[in-house]
């Protein structure tokens, strides 16, 4: 299974994502620059955290028009696995691949600490190794991570089981309905503010993010059959 980690000017969690794939599931992974126009060899695309294009105008606003994003759109529509983390989540919402928008934390503070998440949907490509209702410990690091959708969209998200993670207990940013992560209707595109790639070893404070990477490998194997497993 081939992984792409996108690199925009200002991405700063790209190395973490790359290492997380290597260390958790040991699959081939490449850095893919924002100017790339062919993602056909990749089965999963990770859109990492950071401050793409300096977050000028709005977080993720400029990145949505990078050449590589046209390919990400095609990959998402083709059912390939796409995970946006933090700034990557902001980019995917700006690109319209996920509903909603991320706005400034209600506290106005940059929040950087461990949070407990509830796994609300354990059927997506990135969460099927968890059980629904699992509480997992994953760090956050963001100033603009308050997820917003209008009431009608929220009702749709609930009806379609598109809420993937909620904050358990304290809501660190004021997001609507304590939402920390959502998916598209098909469940192959997931976006979240917390950083699972920073929670892949106990020495980092938690290894609860490992199962996200195991999930996507499992999804891919289920889709492609045992014959193509390397």
């Amino acid at each position, binding site marked *: 299974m081939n992984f792409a980690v996108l690199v925009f000017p200002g991405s700063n969690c790209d190395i973490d994502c790359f290492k997380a794939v290597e260390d958790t599931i040991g699959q081939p992974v490449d850095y893919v620059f924002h100017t790339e126009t062919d993602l056909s060899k990749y089965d999963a695309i990770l859109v990492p955290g950071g401050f793409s294009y300096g977050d000028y*105008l*709005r977080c993720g*606003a*400029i990145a949505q*028009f990078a050449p590589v994003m046209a390919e990400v759109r095609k990959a998402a529509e083709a059912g390939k696995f796409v995970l946006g983390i933090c700034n990557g989540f902001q980019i995917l*919402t*700006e690109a319209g691949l996920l509903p*909603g*928008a991320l*706005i*400034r*934390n*209600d*506290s*106005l503070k940059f929040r950087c600490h461990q949070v407990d998440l509830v796994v609300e949907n354990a059927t997506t490509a990135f969460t099927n190794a968890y059980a629904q209702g699992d509480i997992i410990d994953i760090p956050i690091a963001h100033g603009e991570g*308050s997820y*917003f*959708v*209008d009431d009608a969209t929220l009702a749709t998200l609930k009806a379609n089981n598109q809420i993937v993670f909620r904050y358990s207990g304290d809501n660190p940013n*004021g997001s609507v309905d304590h939402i920390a992560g959502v998916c598209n209707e098909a469940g192959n595109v997931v976006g979240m503010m917390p950083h699972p790639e920073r929670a892949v070893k106990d020495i980092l404070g938690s290894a609860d993010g490992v199962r996200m990477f195991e999930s996507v490998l499992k999804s891919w194997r289920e889709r492609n059959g045992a014959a193509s497993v390397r």
Partner: protein
Amino acid sequence: MKAKVYVTIKENVLDPQGNAVQGALHTMGFNDVSKVRIGKYLEIDLATNDRAQAEAQLKEMSEKLLANTVVEDYRIELEG
């Protein structure tokens, strides 16, 4: 032709920056300040002098990039 684009957070969306500034104004004694909203102001020079064409372009720019219409409204002013 010069254009001004104002991007503001929608009324039903929390504006923590605006609230913080309102709090500061109250601290300064400006207790009559009942609300502050913070937005963005963009000045755009266009090569065209065709008003209709400029408006159409600015609308497209605003909806695709300058404003995120999930959480923001925008307003365009054309000069000249």
